[in-house]
């Protein structure tokens, strides 16, 4: 099931949450909507689900227009950041809810619930209340509940945002594996670029109500369309007014063509990697290099060194050749 989003605009009073956004999400993909808080990604997800009505534009599923349909009739599964568990029902009843609404026979419901609980490893908790589960378990229950009705699209709104760092990482991996098994078109919203890079097939970067760039994690990292995307995904530092990745800066013992004069402020050794903080023309710059390089050059606080961007350094704005990227339709 592909999702076609065309010219969606949504305003809340004077605030424009989505500004003429168009994009297409391919069937079976795991797509991340990535961006800073307040940028519009959650709003877009909710528009797809029918939980918000756009002021303009349309939403279609594999060509079928769904813009006028209420959420009940769109057959999308939705998972919320704070679980939205039905706290007065047991875990099993929660998962069964969608099936009960559709008046499936009791035996079928029982079978399906059991299947799903096994899928998310919550069989032992079938008769507990959500309040007796941990955050991670509740989210797995929410996922099982959404999948129970075999939705054509699965939408997740910052699904791991309320969980501890450790649980977040575990569930991230688990979501990827689940998707590989089930192949439902999945869209999830996150502000965590590491999460998006780790899990998604494609990333859509959204900020200020507009799509900044669309591509695979590699595409976005190596060929960022602009300064914003470059600094949002991956470390950056500024050298001579240009954004450059810290690991793309060469450290040189003496002046070379294109290099700049720098004073070392601090050297931090982090195991294999060494981080060197410098002052170049009064601005702070930091460089990521190997222990070996740092030792070879004998760098220490206070000494002088020369730096320049590597020849093949990543730069914003270089058009990527990848055919997957759909043209960015900006306002």
């Amino acid at each position, binding site marked *: 099931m592909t999702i076609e989003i065309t010219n969606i605009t949504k305003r809340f009073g004077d605030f424009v949450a989505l500004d003429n956004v168009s994009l297409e999400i391919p069937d079976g993909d795991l797509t991340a909507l990535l961006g800073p808080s307040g940028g519009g990604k959650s709003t877009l997800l909710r528009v797809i*689900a*029918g*939980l918000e009505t756009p002021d303009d534009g349309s939403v279609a599923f594999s060509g079928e227009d769904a813009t006028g349909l*209420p*959420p*009940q*009739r*769109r*057959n*999308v*599964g*939705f998972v*919320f950041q*704070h679980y*939205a*568990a*039905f*706290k*007065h029902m047991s875990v099993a009843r929660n998962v069964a*809810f*969608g099936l009960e*609404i*559709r008046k499936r026979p009791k035996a079928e419901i029982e079978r399906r619930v059991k299947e799903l609980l096994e899928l998310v490893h919550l069989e032992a908790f079938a008769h507990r*209340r959500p*309040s007796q589960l941990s955050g991670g378990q509740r989210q797995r229950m*929410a996922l099982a*509940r*959404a999948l129970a*009705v075999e939705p054509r699209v699965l939408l997740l709104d910052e699904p791991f945002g309320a969980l501890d760092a450790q649980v977040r990482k575990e569930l991230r991996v688990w979501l990827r594996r689940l998707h590989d098994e089930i192949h439902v078109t999945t869209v999830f919203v996150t502000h965590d670029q590491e999460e998006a890079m780790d899990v998604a097939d494609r990333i859509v970067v959204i900020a200020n109500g507009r799509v900044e760039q669309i591509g695979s994690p590699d595409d976005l990292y190596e060929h960022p369309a602009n300064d914003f995307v470059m600094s949002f995904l991956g470390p950056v530092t500024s050298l001579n007014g240009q954004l450059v990745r810290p690991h793309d800066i060469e450290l040189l013992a003496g002046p070379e063509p294109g290099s700049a004069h720098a004073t070392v402020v601090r050297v931090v050794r982090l195991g294999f990697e060494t981080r060197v903080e410098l002052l170049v023309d009064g601005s702070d710059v930091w460089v990521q290099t190997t222990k070996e390089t740092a030792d070879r050059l004998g760098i220490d606080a206070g000494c002088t060194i020369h730096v320049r961007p590597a020849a093949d350094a990543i730069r914003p704005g270089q058009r990527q050749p990848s055919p997957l990227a759909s043209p960015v339709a900006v306002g």
Partner: protein
Amino acid sequence: MATLYLSVLVLIPLGAVVWRSREDGWSAFWSDVTTPEAWSTIKLTVLASLGVAAINVVMGTLIAWVLVRDSFPGQRIVEVLIDLPFALPTIVAGLVLIALYGPDSPVGVSLAYSRPGVVLALLFVTLPFVVRTVQPVLLELDVEMEEAAASLGASRFTTFRRIILPNLVPAILAGAGLSFARAMSEYGSTVLISGNIPFRTQVSSVHIYNQIENDNTTGAAAVATLLLIVSLVVLFGINLIERWAVNRD
């Protein structure tokens, strides 16, 4: 020091009521309570209070819903108005009702000297109870639960029935319990509109008053003790429900 105040004011006097009621023995207690007049007032009081509690369950929840989920001009005034029965002296409440629904009614309706009149007075004084217990729960209710139900295919009505209502039940019951207790003990507002016709519109508190005036303090104490016991049971029940609700979260 607080205990002294409490005892002087509450414990000892109440204890005295219970004590006095059994003064002439258990069988005397029973006969005091079952005189035709006493018994009819008890029946009327209990039945009317139950009826009023039931009506309040429906209307109170409805009003709370409208106040929380709807918005219309003048809403803030309505919000404040709900508390009026709390602040108004009961005798004034009685007068207010008789002005519109009594013998000189401008709309020609007369509920005076009738049982519906008693029910009306009780509805007036118990209006805020269910509304005020349900409102905070509605305000705190997780909207996302309703959105989740919608995404799973539930209609508005099904969502209300299966998701919202079950979460409101403890609050509704607590409010109903308070309504019941209040209605059982109401005096001032019923005194005027009911006309206090024995065997027809007389409530227990009026009966107790009459017994006191006739120096039959033992009889009065007997009925009072019965009412006291019922109230205690109800309060205890409310307490249990509230604790069960807290444990569930």
